[in-house]
């Protein structure tokens, strides 16, 4: 009896130990990719990447590492953002087949997929066991930036989201708090609605200008276009009428948004209409604005993280490290502006090798390292990124920073993405430039809506309607 007990006991322990051991050696997507890629040793694959800072990731980190692990050389083809779409399409149309893997802005995916330039990835995902880790991408990116229709065309790889940055010290200043309470009858809190924002912004400018203004934004048309898309939807606007596919951006909501935006410029630094990404960044880092909205890098650089790196030496010195708070923009649903996804070109001659590279890049293990690169422009996009203890330790407020990004990832709004999105976006950009030039908002939006309708007609109302309905059904299309 006792012998059987011993055997059973040993057997049970052994069984447990073995299952524990096999669980510990269950392969991660990164490991699978590396293993499978061995058979392509010695080959070279090309990947199109945004030029400049973004490209440092594959040039300095992921490319060399991949070559070390698999023997596959990675040739990075740097392309300026405005030209990426064109070069990808031209290469595809000419049949040149020079690109293997691609970086693609999700809003372009319908056009690229419809033209046939992107390789559908479902079969590869199953072949190389990536379903699990794909699921662990933050839902907003995962459910909105991966598929066209029901086919996977890219892996979301960049958690671009608009965050509101504000000066904790200014908002926490007792004197200002008292004065505001006296004036407005409520506490000086970080604004949650645009109405509050206008109030707070004006107040702060009255008190602190010209040293500091209540807020500043990057008001150049390409950026403001995103802000308009965000704000318009937060205030309840819809881009199109779902049945008739007629543009409804010229509704009262739209007109109010434009009017308010222009009024806000009054309490911002003079000339804010010309601010681009870097001008706005400089203003914030130098303490000229008390609030601003931008992508995640502002938060890292304001804290001084990575700015000692040579490649970031163009970032103005932060005078506000430790004084920055993070919040969702007013309205609570931030724009997931732009973003990047990794894809495979349909004309690539090395599709498997290219696919394995992007699976490896996008995997839990490797993406965690990539988003923490001090010079990275890739922002956290996996659930695990937002709760990473390592990341949270990067600077004192990093925990709050990641929490804000995580919140944004949950409630974020998708960029409008249809067939020939660029045509619609161009209309919006022109509308913004007309707004700063002083035209009447209603007239601007009526013209814009008319132009949108003309574009829809040219593409084919039914065709576009189908795509729009697919887009509108996504969780991030309109605030739930």
């Amino acid at each position: 009896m006792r012998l059987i007990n011993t055997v059973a006991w040993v057997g049970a322990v052994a069984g447990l130990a073995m299952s524990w051991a096999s669980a510990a050696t269950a392969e991660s997507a990164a490991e699978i990719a590396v293993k499978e890629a061995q058979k392509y040793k010695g080959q070279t694959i090309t990947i199109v990447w945004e030029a400049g800072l973004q490209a440092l990731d594959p040039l300095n980190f992921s490319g060399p590492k991949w070559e070390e692990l698999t023997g596959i050389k990675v040739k990075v083809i740097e392309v300026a953002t405005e030209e990426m779409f064109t070069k990808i399409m031209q290469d595809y149309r000419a049949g040149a087949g020079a690109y293997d893997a691609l970086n693609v802005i999700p809003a372009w995916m319908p056009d690229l997929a419809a033209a046939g330039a992107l390789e559908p990835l479902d079969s590869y995902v199953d072949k190389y066991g990536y379903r699990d880790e794909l699921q662990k991408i933050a839902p907003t990116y995962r459910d909105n930036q991966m598929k066209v229709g029901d086919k996977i065309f890219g892996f979301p790889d960049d958690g671009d989201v608009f965050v509101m940055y504000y000066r904790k010290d200014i908002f926490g200043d007792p004197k200002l708090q008292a004065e505001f309470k006296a004036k407005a009858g409520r506490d000086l809190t970080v604004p949650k609605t645009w109405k509050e924002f206008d109030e707070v912004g004006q107040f702060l400018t009255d008190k602190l200008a010209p040293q500091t203004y209540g807020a500043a934004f990057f008001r150049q048309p390409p950026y403001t276009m995103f802000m308009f898309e965000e704000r318009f939807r937060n205030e309840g606007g819809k881009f199109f009428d779902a049945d008739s596919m007629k543009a409804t951006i010229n509704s009262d909501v739209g007109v109010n948004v434009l009017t308010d935006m222009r009024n806000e410029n009054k309490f911002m630094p003079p000339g804010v209409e010309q601010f681009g990404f870097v001008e706005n960044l400089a203003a914030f880092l130098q303490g000229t604005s008390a609030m601003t909205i931008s992508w995640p890098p502002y938060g890292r650089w304001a804290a001084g993280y990575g700015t000692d790196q040579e490649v970031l030496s163009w970032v103005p010195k932060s005078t506000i490290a430790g004084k920055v708070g993070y919040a969702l923009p007013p309205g609570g649903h931030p724009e997931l502006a732009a973003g990047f996804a990794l894809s495979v070109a349909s004309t690539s001659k090395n599709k498997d090798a290219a696919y394995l590279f992007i699976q490896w890049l996008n995997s839990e293990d490797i993406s965690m390292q990539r988003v923490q690169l001090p010079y990275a422009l890739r922002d956290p996009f996996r659930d695990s990124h937002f709760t990473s203890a390592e990341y949270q330790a990067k600077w004192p407020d990093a925990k709050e920073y990641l929490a804000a990004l995580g919140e944004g990832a949950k409630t974020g709004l998708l960029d409008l993405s249809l067939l020939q999105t660029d045509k619609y976006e161009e209309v919006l950009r022109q509308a913004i430039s007309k707004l700063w030039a002083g035209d009447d908002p209603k007239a601007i939006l009526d013209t814009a809506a008319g132009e949108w309708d003309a574009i829809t007609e040219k593409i084919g109302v039914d065709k576009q309607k189908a795509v729009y309905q697919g887009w509108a059904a996504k969780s991030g299309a309109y605030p739930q």
Partner: protein
Amino acid sequence: MTASDRGTASGMSESTASAMVGASGVATPAGVAPDRFFKYWLIVPAIFLLLLVGLFPLIYSLVVSFQSLTMLEMDYSFAGFTNYIALFKDARLWESLLHTVIITAIALPIELVVGLLMAQLFLERLPGRQIFVSLLVLPTIISPIVAGATWRLLFDNRYGPINQIVGWFAGEPMPLLWTISPYLVYPAILLCEIWQWTPFMFLILLAALSNVDKSLTEAAEIDGAGYWRTFFKIVLPSIWPVMAIAILIRGLDLARIFDIIYALTAGGPGTMTETASIYAYVQGFQQFETSYTAAMAFLIIALLTALVTWAIRRMGLAK
């Protein structure tokens, strides 16, 4: 000596020369002048290259303009004149042509006159002339993209010196929004364009002026002619061939102006400063309306050809 005189003279020289070649002992078949092909040899390499690079795109664009190629649809079927008809109905296209004409009509004369005056200024000896001329050519060497970006920074209200300087003269801060205000965008663009390309006219005219036969001008001076009379009656006609071509080239380039405007205003506000090239870029490059852009290109070529042919006749360039 008129050009026709020169033609006759060279005709005479040719036969004399071929006779000379024969006389100096080079074996030539009786009666065949080897130099008859000389003039063709001279043009063959150039024409070959031009055809190599230029023929296929021309044919391709022509064919494609009658089809319906866009980003999404590679519809190679013959679509007749649809694209061309659409061109005529396209208000935005005609506005862009108007903008192009405005910019050309203003910038070209200014660049010509200022360039000419500058060339006159530096014609005679001046200590350090070499340095001056080299410095003055700098604007053209800066890539137009960089020039546009630099001027954008210069014009910035907060971080650029121009508003700062204007403020000094005005006595108070002047927040002029050069790249946004409808009243300032054209001056801004013109300023940048004239700044960048006047040195082109300057250098070319300087070269032309320095070739003017000094003995003629000296003779006129001795005869008592004033400075301006000498200039208009002797100097100008002498440099006219070069000057006319410079005007032609500069005019054609102005018609294709792109980088400066794109960097400063991207055609904005709205489409107020959108020139034909920018519109073609938006259509052809960003939105992949391949067929439509090809049709647009031919329209522009047709217009320019008509203009250039008229200009050549008027300016007597191809006699």
